[in-house]
């Protein structure tokens, strides 16, 4: 293969994978934007969704049209429930309380998932072919195309939701100031629950797509680690930021892996985004699209 073709392939792959990171990062951003909570269990949400769908398909032989909505419903319920039981009690506490709570939750989910559904890797088979599409010089696996399309659709839907819908405006108001939102009679807790439920939706979609690419076991939760570089690059509370951050991380890790891995024997993918993240923190701490604080002196 010629050099430019190789590079092009790395790029296109990176972009598609990147969009799938964006989708998962969207879950993180939704919650941060509306509730100020930093969810360190985002990857575990995806894993649990993957388990639910894979087990429904495999062990119970449910058809796909049933298994996927089931996964969605389960994750929405999970999001709601979590907000009710755990996170609501942490409102108004220092941010570190929520951080620690979600780190703890992540550990619990990593244990409970395999405990409930078995530790072995489960296949999550979607009725699409493995044969890559060949578009000129590019090879595109159908699952990546599907994943990227789902990501684009949902990023668009949630972007519209925040920007234009009545509930979206309320959520942004809450993000600006919870107390003032309350003074306007907005039921803040209800919107918190909604944000967690929306994260459930995104996690379920991520679980299906990533689960079908990687198989479902505890390692599926590792996709959560890609969220941090993505949101730091893009801005913790920005949906366009999640898209751009995802694309950057996808491309950087693919290109880095393509060129560096042959010399070092692999692993570049896992740390390259973090190098980028740390650079971003040093240079642009609020991310590319992050909300700047409006300050008057």
């Amino acid at each position, binding site marked *: 293969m010629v050099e430019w073709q190789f590079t092009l392939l790395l790029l296109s792959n990176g972009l598609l994978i990147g969009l799938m990171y964006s989708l998962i990062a969207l879950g993180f951003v939704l919650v941060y934007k509306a509730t100020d909570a930093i969810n360190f269990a985002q990857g575990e949400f995806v894993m649990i969704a993957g388990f639910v769908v894979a087990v429904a398909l495999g062990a119970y032989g449910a058809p796909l049209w049933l298994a996927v909505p089931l996964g969605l419903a389960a994750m929405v319920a999970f999001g709601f429930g979590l907000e009710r039981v755990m996170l609501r009690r942490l409102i108004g506490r220092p941010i570190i309380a929520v951080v620690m709570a979600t780190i703890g939750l992540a550990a619990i989910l990593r244990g409970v998932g395999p405990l409930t559904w078995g530790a072995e890797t489960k296949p999550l088979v979607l009725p699409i072919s493995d044969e890559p599409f060949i578009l000129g010089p590019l090879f595109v696996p159908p699952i990546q195309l599907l994943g990227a399309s789902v990501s684009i659709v949902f990023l668009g839907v949630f972007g519209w939701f925040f920007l234009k819908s009545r509930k979206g405006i309320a959520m942004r*108001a809450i993000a600006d100031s919870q107390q003032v939102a*309350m003074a306007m009679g907005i039921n803040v807790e209800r919107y918190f629950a909604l944000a967690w439920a929306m994260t459930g939706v995104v996690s379920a979609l991520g679980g299906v797509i990533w689960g079908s690419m990687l198989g479902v076991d505890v390692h599926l939760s590792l996709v959560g680690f890609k969220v941090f570089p993505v949101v730091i690059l893009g801005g913790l509370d920005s949906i366009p930021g999640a898209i751009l951050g995802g694309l950057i991380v996808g491309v950087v890790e693919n290109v880095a892996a393509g060129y560096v891995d042959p010399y070092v024997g692999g692993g570049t993918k896992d740390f390259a985004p973090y190098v980028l993240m740390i650079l971003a923190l040093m240079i642009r701490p609020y991310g590319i699209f992050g909300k700047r604080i409006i300050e008057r002196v």
Partner: protein
Amino acid sequence: MSAVSDDARPLLAVNSIEVIYDHVILVLKGVSLRVPEGGIVALLGANGAGKSTTLKSISGLLRTERGNVTKGTIEFRGQPIHRKDPAEVVKRGIVQVMEGRHVFEHLTVEENLLTGGYTRKNGHSARADLELVYGYFPRLAERRQVRAGYVSGGEQQMVAIGRALMARPRLMLLDEPSMGLAPILVQEIFEIVSRMNREAGVAVLLAEQNATMALRFAQYGYVMENGRIVLDGDARTIGENEDIKEFYLGLSGVGQRKSYRDVKHYRRRKRWLS
């Protein structure tokens, strides 16, 4: 205008409330006041007298600051409201405009206004309410698409008041609308508020340090000191009382403090990772 104290059933009645913050800090020590239907009542007093605490007790926002009404009652149109949460209080027709021009800075002016109408559900048109608000504040119509964080201080105060009006309240609690604004703007805003009061029939409870201005627009006034009401009466009587002028109303050096508070407020905004 003695309608205020004698009314059989006032719109709002605060009956000897006691307020404690953090379970130990006693801030209000038996405060009583009344606002008649459609009236404008001024609540005056120096820094720390307890004006904001009184308003927050009424709106229910007190609990977001770990405060509690431990004694007394608050009745709105004859119903007790001192145990209701803010959303419920807004639904019943009381809305508070908080001290310090709290707009949603990252929302546009129009989005800010829209959030004011969220408790109104059935058969109301947000459009019509917006037009009403723009009618009172034509300046906001011009700036409707601008982020509220970037409009002037006076315009932010207009956003805050207009947003409250979107809830179509019977009673508006205004906490120091004059804070940090030029006298000419204060005049403009107070005139709009009194127009709102006349035309839309919104009663107003106005907490102010700027007593001269407040008493010009109010019919009745209460003076607070150290968590108690120390004096009340007809606005004109209070305004002309020499002792009061000197002890409660003529406090100077307040201007400096105000601008300092403003700076503090904007500095306190949340920042992550810094």
